[in-house]
Each structure stands twice: as structure tokens, then as C-alpha cells.
């Protein structure tokens, strides 16, 4: 098994699915000749030509809106938003059409499309290049939201997203694009959308994280586990529809839960997880659920961003507090 970065793994998924299914194409700003500003679509232009590796005009609503038309007409577009920070310009088409076409026509017209977008901070980028707003997309029923955390699941989930018959926002933690490698099987593999994954098993505490927060979370967990705690770690992978069963089963077992979220504290995915735990397993809780999150401030420029993203030390601290509660 080759060791790939997430960028390479995503590129692999696109390539294999484009080879397998002629109706798949990638589209977006600079995805063609340039191979995308992060090189996720690198080489597809050479292999599949400009009609399946489609450089579009600079317009995010345009990209999603035309992808909707293509999807209705039988293609499977994988559109790229250059950064999630520009994706809000497509929100009208997302809320108003992509997520509604199936229910509007009771399945006669559907939007099997993926919108890929790098999100999150930590790469010293300009304004609008660093925030995490997965919760915003999660407020729209009818659309899925998927966030991989490593090269292997990125590849498997992107394949699943392309094959999914519903519109998927696929948010890629850009901080993890190249920061580590993982073995990725040569054989195609997919993972089910809508299911979280238990990344570590344990009995004393459940930790839920996703995307770029998985790495610092696992580091922190290792550190605390080294001192004897048995910690279960759940990698959320799909934000919407949320797999509360996996989370609640774990919390029922452990009685304690910490959620690590890069996004601001309020109105984030962590809140929904807490609500699900409250719904189903509140009585098993032995401590308040802890949210380790960003703050409710406008995403700071990169001079300050490091202090604003939960670091390993803060996670360690939070795990200990919850274990000792």
C-alpha cells in the first residue's frame, strides 16, 4: 500500500472514479490546467481533457448552479470551491435548489453532485481562507456534509460521495492536506456516508472530533491514555446526517464526553452532538460534556490564529478535567 498525502488520496479517488464512470467530471476555478490551487485535481486535465476537467468562470453560484443542471441532465459533477470561505456565494443554489430538487419532484429530478471545499485554519492564509462553517451547511436538510480526517478515509469517502445520489458538501481540512501520509489501498474502497467511526476503543471517556481536529485529538488522547485512562475516540466523518447512534452507544458506555471542534463554540456541530446525547443517554452522564472549540469571534487573521484553534495542550487539559470530574 502506497503512503499518500490527503491531496494525493483525493486525487486518486477522482481519477479512479472518472475512469470508472464517464459521467463524472470535475469543475471549478483553476481545477483544469492548474490542477487546483492545492493540486487536488492535478493531472486530470491531461488524462480526461478540458470537458471533464472543466475550468469555469470565477463564480461560485455559477459553479453550483450549473452543476445542478448537469446533474439533472445525467452527469455527476464534482465541483470545487477554491476555499470554503467563498462557498457562501453559492448558498442560494444550495439551500434553494441542490438540497430541494429531490423532495420538490419526489425523486424525479435529483442532484447527484459533490461540492468539494478546503476549510479550516492553520496554514497562515489570508482572510476568508481559514474558517470552519460546517454547521452552516448542516442546517439544510436534503444535503449531506462529509469531512474526512486522513488520506485513507478521504479517498474512501470521496468515492462514496461521488456515487451518492444526493448532493454532498465535502469539506477538506486543508491543514491535513499535506501534513502527514497514510497507507491507502490500491484497490478502490468506499466508506458509508452517515456513519461515524470508532478510531480508538476505550471505556472511561468518549472523545468526538472530525477533520483537522482529529490529529491533535489523537495526540492528546495518546498522552492522557499513556497515564492509564481508557479513551474511546470517534471520528465523525459525516456531519449530516449525523450518526448519533455510534456516539450515544459510546457515551452510554463511558459516561463522559469531550467534543473537539475547530469552529466557534456556539451553534456548531458540537452543540448538536450534545443535544443528541441529551436526547438518548443523558442519564448515563457522569460529568458535563465538554466542548473544546474555537471562540465566538470573527476568524482572526493568521497572526493570531494559532491561539484560536484548540491546541493539543488544551485538549489534554480538557480530557483530564472531564476524566476527573
Amino acid at each position, binding site marked *: 500500500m502506497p503512503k499518500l498525502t490527503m491531496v494525493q488520496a483525493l486525487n486518486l479517488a477522482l481519477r479512479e472514479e472518472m475512469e470508472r464512470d464517464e459521467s463524472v467530471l470535475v469543475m471549478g476555478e483553476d481545477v483544469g490546467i492548474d490542477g487546483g490551487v492545492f493540486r487536488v485535481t492535478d493531472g486530470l486535465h491531461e488524462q480526461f481533457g478540458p*470537458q471533464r476537467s472543466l475550468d*469555469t*468562470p470565477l*463564480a461560485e*453560484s*455559477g459553479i*453550483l*448552479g*450549473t*452543476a*445542478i*443542471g*448537469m*446533474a*439533472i*441532465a*445525467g*452527469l455527476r*459533477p464534482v465541483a470545487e470551491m477554491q476555499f470554503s470561505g467563498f462557498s457562501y456565494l453559492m448558498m*442560494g*443554489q444550495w439551500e*434553494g*435548489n441542490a438540497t430541494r*430538487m*429531490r*423532495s*420538490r*419532484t*419526489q*425523486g*424525479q*429530478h*435529483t442532484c447527484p453532485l459533490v461540492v468539494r471545499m478546503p476549510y479550516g485554519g492553520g496554514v497562515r492564509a489570508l482572510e476568508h481562507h481559514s474558517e470552519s462553517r460546517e454547521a452552516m451547511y448542516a442546517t439544510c*436538510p*436534503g444535503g*449531506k456534509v462529509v469531512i474526512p480526517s486522513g488520506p485513507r478515509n478521504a479517498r474512501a469517502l470521496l468515492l462514496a460521495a461521488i456515487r*451518492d*445520489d*444526493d448532493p454532498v458538501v465535502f469539506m477538506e481540512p486543508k491543514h491535513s492536506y499535506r501534513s502527514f501520509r497514510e497507507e491507502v489501498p490500491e484497490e478502490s474502497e468506499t466508506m458509508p456516508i*452517515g456513519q461515524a467511526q470508532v478510531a480508538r476503543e476505550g471505556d472511561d471517556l468518549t472523545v468526538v472530533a472530525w477533520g483537522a481536529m482529529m490529529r491533535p485529538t489523537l495526540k492528546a488522547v495518546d498522552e492522557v491514555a499513556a497515564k492509564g485512562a481508557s479513551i474511546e475516540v470517534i471520528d465523525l466523518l459525516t456531519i449530516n*446526517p*449525523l*450518526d*448519533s*447512534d455510534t456516539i450515544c452507544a459510546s457515551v452510554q458506555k463511558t459516561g463522559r464526553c469531550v467534543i473537539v471542534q475547530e469552529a466557534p463554540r456556539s451553534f456548531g456541530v458540537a452543540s448538536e452532538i450534545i443535544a443528541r446525547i441529551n436526547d438518548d443517554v443523558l442519564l448515563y452522564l457522569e460529568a458535563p460534556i465538554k466542548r473544546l472549540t474555537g471562540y465566538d469571534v470573527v476568524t482572526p487573521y493568521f497572526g493570531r490564529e494559532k491561539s484560536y484553534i484548540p491546541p493539543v495542550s488544551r485538549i489534554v487539559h480538557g480530557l483530564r478535567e472531564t476524566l476527573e470530574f
Partner: protein
Amino acid sequence: MPRKTLAEFKVEHLRVLDENGHVDPELEPDLSTEQLHALYRGMVRARELDQRMLNLQRQGRIGTFGPCTGQEAPSCSAALAMKDDDWFVGAFRELGGRLMRGEPLTGTLFFHNGWEEGNVLPPEVSRRMLPFTIIVASQCLHAAGVGFAASQRGQGEAVVCFSGDGATSEGDFHEGLNFAGVWKAPVVFVSQNNQWAISVPREMQTSSQTLAQKGIAYDMPCIQVDGNDALACYVAISEALERARRGEGPSLIEAVTYRLLMHTTADDPRKYRTEDEEKEWWQKEPLIRFQKYMTAKGIWDDAKEEALRTELRAEVDEAVQTLESQKPWPAERPFDHVFAEPHPSITRQREEFLANLKEEADA
């Protein structure tokens, strides 16, 4: 040549049939009697259903809707000009064209009675027709995308996309035309300039003299036609469809028409426009002039008119009966169309929903 002219453009106006039904013989399209009858029938059918829906709405028997009276020509002409494999992408005032493309009368009735089931069409109809679009101008992008997909197949499919004068202000209108232009997508954009976007008159919507000239921004062939003249609409749309099929890309047609009635049944035009203005436009409406044209041609008479009206009214009666005898569809259907595959969380909510319903019914 420091101040040199780089490019010149002009915008033309086309009319074939004047307000009194006189045809310009040089411009008259070569349509068979059957085709002319079909076009007229399509327009009258929309008018009849529209008028009936207005009554139904006033009686609380359907919900809010936006009448199309006075604007039957552009979409019916398009339907006549289109091939089976072409795509019809509408806004919300193309009843005539939709019906001609095969949408059953009950479609619009169910839709306006608050049921998604109204959008579920016979497969051969839905295949090449997108549902009613409420988000103004958003369909212009869908049309460009459908056009791209169609041109990939290379089977000469084209797309006709409707939007209104108000729609020209939205970013999506611009992006739709731009994408279609760059892709040379086979799309005919028809801008139904009915003079009003709810209460906002055309001249407050944009400072351009015509809407047609907005095509110049994309070097797109553009023309203004008399939108109450079904023949002019037909000629312009047919020419544009030909260009599209030849791979010459999209066109923009401004169809100058008038929304003779209220914006929707929730609107009161007295707040913002005069009855005189409306009266003036009633003189120019599309049905009468077409009838006169056919009569002069010797292919129409009072007997035919009466037979047509009687037939269509009966059809509308029947559709209304179907509407009113339709039992409500299952309340839980929305759960079945959130995603293609049910997710446990949705399935559980569906059960909860049914339990709640039962409890509320029992209460």
C-alpha cells in the same frame, strides 16, 4: 489610432404580427395549419386554466398563484419550436408552454394546492422539463448546466430557458449567460419583459434601454421581439434554436409583453400602476391578434373558436374535479425524499412523526 473603435453592436426589434393581426408577409414563418392551430390552442388552454385558477383561488380552493394571462405567446411559441429532446427550463409564468410540452393540467393545480405531487409528471414529460422555479433567475444556471451536459452528448439537444425582466438583475442571470457563453452551450434564454417585477417597473430594474442588449456583455446574439406576437416569438426562438444546434452557442431574446393581471393572487396592482396602462395593454394581448390572423388566413372561424373553448373548459372542469376528489397524499412522504437512501435518524423521526400524527388525530 489612439481612440479606435474596437467593436460595434446593435439591438433589433422584431414583430411579425401587428396588434390588429396583420402579418408582415416577408417575415411570416412557414407554419402549417396544424401548427398554427396547435399554437393557438396552447395559448387558449393556458388562458382558460389561468382564469379558472383565479376563481378557485378567490374561493379558497387553491393557494397563491401567479397568473400568466397576457404572456401566453413566448412559452407556447417555444414549445412549438422545440423538439422532443429539447429541454424546457421555466420560471413560474410559462403555463402555456408547460402544458404544450405535456404537463397535465392537474400538475399546476396540485402544485398550487400545496402538494409536491404536482411536480411529479409523466416520465416522458419530466424527462426534459424542469419544475417551476421560484428563486428568481436561479434556473438560468441550471439551463447552462443542462446545456453543457446536452452538448457533451452531441445529439443536437437544445435548452430554452425563461426568466423575467426582474430576473435580469440577479447575479444568477448574469452568471448563467456568462457560463453558457463560455461553454457555447445550446441555450436560448428568453427574457419575458412583462414590464413589472411585482411593483417595480422595468425602468427601475435596470438603466438599459432594452433587456436584449444585456446579451452584448457576452457577445451573444440578442434581439427584442414583440412578446405578444406569437409569430415573432416563434421566428426568433427557432432561429436561436438553430444556432444552438449548430454549435454556435446561446442567444438572448427579450420578449416584450405585459402581465395583464396581478403579480400573484396576493398582490394588488392598484397600489402601483394605473388601470389605463392595463387597458392599453389589453389592446395588444396575444390571443385576439392571433385569432384575427388565422381568420384572415381562412383557417379559423367562430365555430372553431367556440368548439375549442368548449372543449378546453370541459378539460379544465375535469382537472378541477380530479383536484377536488384527490384525497390528501400521505403526510409522511417528505421523509421519503430527504435522501435517496433512508438514514436511521430520518427513519426514526418518520416514526415519531407518525406517532405524533396519530396522537393529534386521537386528541
